[in-house]
């Protein structure tokens, strides 16, 4: 037995769990991980949708290179900092944590998260921080940003800049707290028989992501404290007049890869289920790949490269640094190995006739392909001699990773819709959403890379008019992915509300992990009885041998 395994006597019986919360008061005071997770998913999906629309508007604004069509220069620069910060820190990371909050306890056979009140405090902290963050931009503040040669005045209120820094500090505190809650839950609340080697891959990816986010975003929090204190005491550091540059490392590789760590877990869980394959041999490899990808996406060490506090005089960790190049090269391997494992699952599933054509599958495939492309092209950005850093090439890598995370997130919502919304969403919408995510992210990346390579984007936010048109179409497609997913979820909720019959515990009929053993939507105490766990796919162990396709039965 492992040190953190749960003994039989330590399992909390369902009768000891608190009463189900009711109404708005119940929601505000609840520590139920599912209610909190749904709230977090809802809020973060709204932010992602808004950020995608904003990204579309920003690209439309500069569709004619060097001329603002829609927003004007001041708004363009200001909202240009809001979009990436919003989609990564207020959107995608909280979204993944929201998914984890709903699903991790279900996957590991726990009745609750480790610290329900801390989880509730973090979710409401996120709500407050996210609101203040957005308010800071619309009250004349936001992130001070270097506008290059443009003399436009972006910031009009100093106190709103302080609000921006403080809201980011609170946001990071909420993300760190939620990460700690989820990591601790996986380590200490697993049911009997669920050793760490048997933890479902999504839960495992949340553990890795939680640790990496905690360690790396703490550094951003420290920088924001410095920015806040400096800015509120006269801004003696030159860096404070370009405070956004202190945040940029989060959006560049390797740190940007960290938002896609849970995407690997989502992809692996979905493909294993819909190809009806067990991964006995490849499983340790995949666990290692997710961990390796997480470690190699740790980018806090690159802070000094962006520290304009130091007036360009820092001789360390600039591009062409051998360590960065080696890390950028190594990070390719875990992603490509997962891609190979996924391809092998398809081969085995198709061969055994066990392939299930379902909405989440295309999203998972699109996600792993986009991530593979991101790490492959990301390597070249590390070579300073190629002159790609600081151009739209960085944006191409960013968009591919964000696209991978959005595709995986969309696939996850379709996959676990019955656990989140109460019923499955429409299959066809999931497939269209996946195609849009792939085409959209690909179009933006191709346009950005072409602009960077042809030298038509000396500045980050300008480019070639034709290429910008392609990118605008790409933005529209990615925004379409998010909106289709939202609509599909609303349809699923309506189906659940209108339906007279209960949704099956496993509406796909292919479940492998414990979340498919509980009702849809799950009971307040998660399980009536937790099935015994003797393998990483306990639900398959429950089935009679004749119901398994030959490959699965092995």
């Amino acid at each position: 037995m492992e040190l953190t395994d749960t003994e039989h006597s330590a399992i909390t019986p369902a009768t000891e769990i608190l009463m189900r919360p009711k109404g708005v008061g119940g929601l505000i005071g609840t520590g139920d991980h599912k209610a909190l997770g749904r709230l977090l998913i809802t809020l973060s999906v709204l932010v992602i949708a808004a950020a995608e629309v904003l990204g579309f508007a920003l690209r439309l604004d500069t569709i004619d290179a060097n001329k603002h069509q829609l927003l004007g220069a001041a708004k363009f620069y200001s909202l240009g900092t809001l979009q990436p910060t919003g989609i990564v820190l207020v959107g995608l990371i909280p979204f993944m944590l929201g998914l984890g909050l709903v699903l991790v306890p279900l996957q590991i056979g726990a009745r609750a998260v480790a610290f329900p009140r801390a989880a509730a405090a973090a979710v409401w902290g996120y709500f407050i921080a996210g609101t203040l963050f957005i308010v800071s931009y619309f009250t004349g503040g936001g992130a001070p940003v270097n506008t290059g040669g443009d003399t436009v005045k972006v910031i009009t209120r100093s106190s709103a800049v302080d609000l921006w820094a403080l809201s980011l500090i609170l946001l990071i505190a909420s993300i760190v707290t939620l990460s700690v809650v989820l990591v601790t839950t996986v380590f200490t609340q697993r049911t009997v028989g669920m050793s760490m080697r048997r933890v479902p891959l999504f839960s495992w990816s949340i553990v890795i992501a939680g640790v990496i986010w905690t360690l790396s975003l703490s550094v951003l929090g420290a920088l924001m404290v410095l920015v806040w204190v400096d800015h509120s005491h006269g801004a003696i550091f030159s860096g404070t007049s370009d405070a956004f540059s202190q945040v940029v490392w989060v959006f560049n590789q390797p740190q940007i890869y960290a938002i896609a760590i849970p995407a690997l877990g989502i992809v692996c869980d979905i493909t294993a289920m819909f190809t009806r394959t067990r991964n006995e041999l490849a499983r340790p490899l995949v666990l290692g790949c997710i961990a390796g990808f997480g470690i190699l996406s740790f980018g806090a060490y690159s802070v000094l490269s962006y520290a304009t506090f130091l007036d360009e005089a820092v001789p360390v960790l600039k591009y062409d640094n051998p360590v960065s190049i080696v890390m950028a090269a190594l990070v390719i391997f875990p992603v490509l190995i997962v891609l190979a494992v996924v391809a092998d699952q398809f081969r085995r599933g198709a061969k055994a006739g066990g392939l299930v054509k379902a909405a989440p599958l295309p999203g998972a495939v699109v996600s792993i392909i986009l991530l593979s492309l991101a790490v492959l092209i990301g390597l070249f950005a590390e070579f300073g001699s190629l002159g790609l850093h600081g151009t739209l090439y960085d944006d191409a890598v960013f968009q591919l990773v964000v696209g991978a995370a959005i595709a995986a997130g969309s696939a996850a919502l379709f996959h676990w819709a019955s656990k989140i919304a109460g019923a499955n969403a429409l299959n066809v919408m999931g497939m269209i959403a996946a195609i849009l995510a792939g085409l959209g992210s690909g179009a933006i990346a191709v346009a950005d890379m072409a602009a960077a390579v042809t030298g038509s984007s000396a500045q980050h936010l300008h480019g070639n008019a034709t290429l910008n048109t392609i990118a605008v179409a790409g933005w529209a497609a990615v925004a379409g992915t998010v909106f289709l997913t939202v609509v599909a979820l609303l349809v699923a909720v309506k189906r659940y509300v209108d339906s007279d019959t209960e949704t099956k515990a496993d509406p796909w009929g292919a479940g492998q992990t414990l979340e498919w053993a509980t009702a849809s939507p799950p009971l307040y105490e998660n399980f009536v009885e937790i099935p015994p766990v003797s393998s990483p796919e306990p639900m398959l162990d429950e089935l009679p041998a004749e119901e398994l396709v030959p490959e699965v039965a092995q």
Partner: protein
Amino acid sequence: MSLDLARIDAAVVDHAPPAARQRPRSLLIASSIFSGAAVMIMAALTGLYLAARHVALAGHATWVPSGGLPLTGPNTALFTLLLSIPAMAWAQQAVRNNDRQSLWISYGIVLLLGAAFVNAESFILRTMNLSTDPKTPVGISQSNVALLIFVIVGVHIAIIGAAMLATLVTGFRALGGRLDRSDHDAVDAVALFWYVAVALFGLLWYAVYVMK
């Protein structure tokens, strides 16, 4: 008269203390992760401080003027925190011995030393003078060195404050009879965070106060 060994064995088993229940070490794991976050925060700020110092010294600029940051206060603060380590270890041992009185006393000492440390640090910040002219002290609005030191020390005080708060809460839990030899996860978790906070001051003491 023959002894009924089976009955005696059964009686011994009935009266034996129950085996300690294996509890999930939730608080200890959470404390480890929060400690990691605290380490990263201090490492980032100290790294920036050292990088800025390196840039200034490479340009032959004055970083901390002679006598601007005497070592007496930081040494006192360091020894204050070092003294708290045996007190915290005493608390861990006390809870394993079901000795609540010793637990409260040791926590009282830790909190007292923590408060003394905060007092020492605030004294250092108040008396710090990084001006080359002692008669015209510079504040954090005029000196980037002063601002960096203020932020690093301030953040560390916040970490110590969080550790003191956790100690206080755990002490109250012990007062309510919640902690004993079978359930000392909270005491160990607080102790871990405290030790990390002390170690972080060691880093700060050397990088900022000794190296200047």
